[in-house]
């Protein structure tokens, strides 16, 4: 994956505008978070292959970045995005990795379902 360059990622987000797309969105602090530190409040959320359509999409911030997708009746957003990749199947993979490289958040957009 590459570090976010808004000039490269913004047009890729726009490429999917107005299409039926599949979304992978997750955030987590890991299953061991409260095992290693009892003060941690463990929380996470995960949706894979949510089928949506967005009318506008934007990446913003000074890094880590925020990505918001506006739908007819609502919103999707992710905060903490640091890396991106357009994979061989033209899926836009965006991820936020913490200082140790651990995945903290992922937002991925694809025209075909994720396996």
């Amino acid at each position, binding site marked *: 994956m590459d570090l976010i360059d808004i000039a490269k990622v913004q047009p890729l987000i726009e490429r999917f505008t107005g299409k039926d797309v599949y979304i992978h969105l997750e955030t987590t602090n890991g299953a061991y978070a409260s095992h290693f530190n009892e003060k941690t409040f463990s929380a996470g959320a995960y949706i894979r292959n949510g089928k949506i359509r967005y009318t506008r999409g934007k990446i913003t911030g000074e890094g880590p970045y925020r990505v918001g997708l506006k739908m007819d009746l609502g919103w999707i957003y992710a905060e903490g995005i640091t890396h991106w990749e357009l994979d061989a199947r033209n899926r836009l993979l965006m991820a936020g990795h913490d200082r*140790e490289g651990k995945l903290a958040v992922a937002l991925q957009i694809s025209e075909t379902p*994720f396996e």
Partner: protein
Amino acid sequence: MEKHVLIIFPHPDDEAFGVSGSIAQFTGSGTPVTYMCLTLGEMGRNMGNPPFATRESLPEVRKQELLKAADVLGIKDLRMMGLRDKTIEFEDPEKLVGIFIDAINELDPSLIITFYPGYSVHPDHDACGAAVIEAVRRLPESKRPKVECVAFSHNCEEELGKPDVIRDVSKFMNKKLDTLDAHKSQTAGLMAGMKKRLQANEEELMNWIQFERFWTYPFENNDEKTGS
């Protein structure tokens, strides 16, 4: 000597931490080992630093690491079960129990190693262990293999007592380190810190590597409890 050992864990690398020395000891003495690994650790958070894997490429990375670990340990029968990381507790428990009963009937193991339900921290670990226990519980008492459980929650010794099986695997220390090393995407950071500690011959770490601890599951005390 065991006739056949069946290891059941949910994630590639679960076998590496507290069990790889035992596995090396079994295969080294000619006991066949089957490892059923339920998922490919698709939701792992370690992606390298800087990251070399993506959410979508991680399963293939971890699959290759698992194959390598099985090779290091001399496991000839590795079964990747195709479930998804972090979803085990949401699966139909009967589906899991059925899979395990089928495997037990097929392999007739003398020993099963899995996680101690309720004492293994990760929800996948607990759900995996609970389904294995339930599968064995349904066998007639005379046909039940021994079940050794791994537990590492903070309260495990307080509630379960001391582990009753302690295996000295010091002879297989290098295989254990090689197994941990095989799971690079998950263990690279850990291994870097560990090598320094090994050089210092740190007692706690050496103890962790050389002795593996298990709790034999006490079916006779729990026959009614685990049914729920």
